[in-house]
């Protein structure tokens, strides 16, 4: 298995909502970047995108 194959497999597992079992055991389940975190992040990004954009004002003097 090449590095790219391993990366591909890891991405697929994460997208299926699976987290590395041993990592979770070692960290005691206190991991920030979980699939749930990114679901929330996506929601936040979408809400931010729906909000009216505020044009940046620059002082042109």
């Amino acid at each position, binding site marked *: 298995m090449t590095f790219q194959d391993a*990366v591909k497999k890891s991405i697929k597992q*994460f997208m299926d909502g699976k987290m590395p079992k041993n990592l979770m055991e070692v960290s005691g389940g206190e991991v920030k970047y979980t699939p749930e975190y*990114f679901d929330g*992040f996506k929601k936040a990004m979408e809400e931010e995108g729906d909000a009216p954009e505020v044009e940046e004002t620059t002082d042109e003097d």
Partner: protein
Amino acid sequence: MKIDAPVPGANLLADTRNYPWHRPPDITDYDEAVSYMISRISQEEQAELVYSLLQIDTTVTTVVSGLLMQSIAKGKIPIDLAILISGPVARYIEVIAQTNGYKYDMGTDTSDRVKITPTLLKMAMGIIEDDDEEEEMEATPEVVPAMPEGGLMGAPTDADKMTATDEEQASMLGMNADSEEPVEEENIDGMA
């Protein structure tokens, strides 16, 4: 002849700290590593590169593995941790691509994978060499010349029947009525 090879045992004396990946990595924590990668991707220059790659049909998997390999080469993260954080990094890129309306391909589905060959790459890049054209010419079916007829070594034609007639065959097999049949030896001693 110039020998440009290391002296036997040179590896035992070499300073292995010359390479970043020979030293202990800077980051060993999962969350810290993901934060580092996200901050890297969020940099303006890096973000432009990542999303430009996605625009030209580069898969997210390829982009992620490239970014991770850069970090491994710099000695920032170890290889095994890089594989572990590839999922969150890919998901982050996916979320950003979705919210910004970029088209992307995750590259995790292998069902419609097209096998990459040198010819396919050349076609994709618009490189057609003269050698390729010659190869194509060689690939055309070879025209087989007609069998030479006539002469001493020529193949027999339908006109030149090589098959013997029935009589000739019968005589060769000794079945001809005119052929001499072996005469049975007379019993000289008169014994039955």
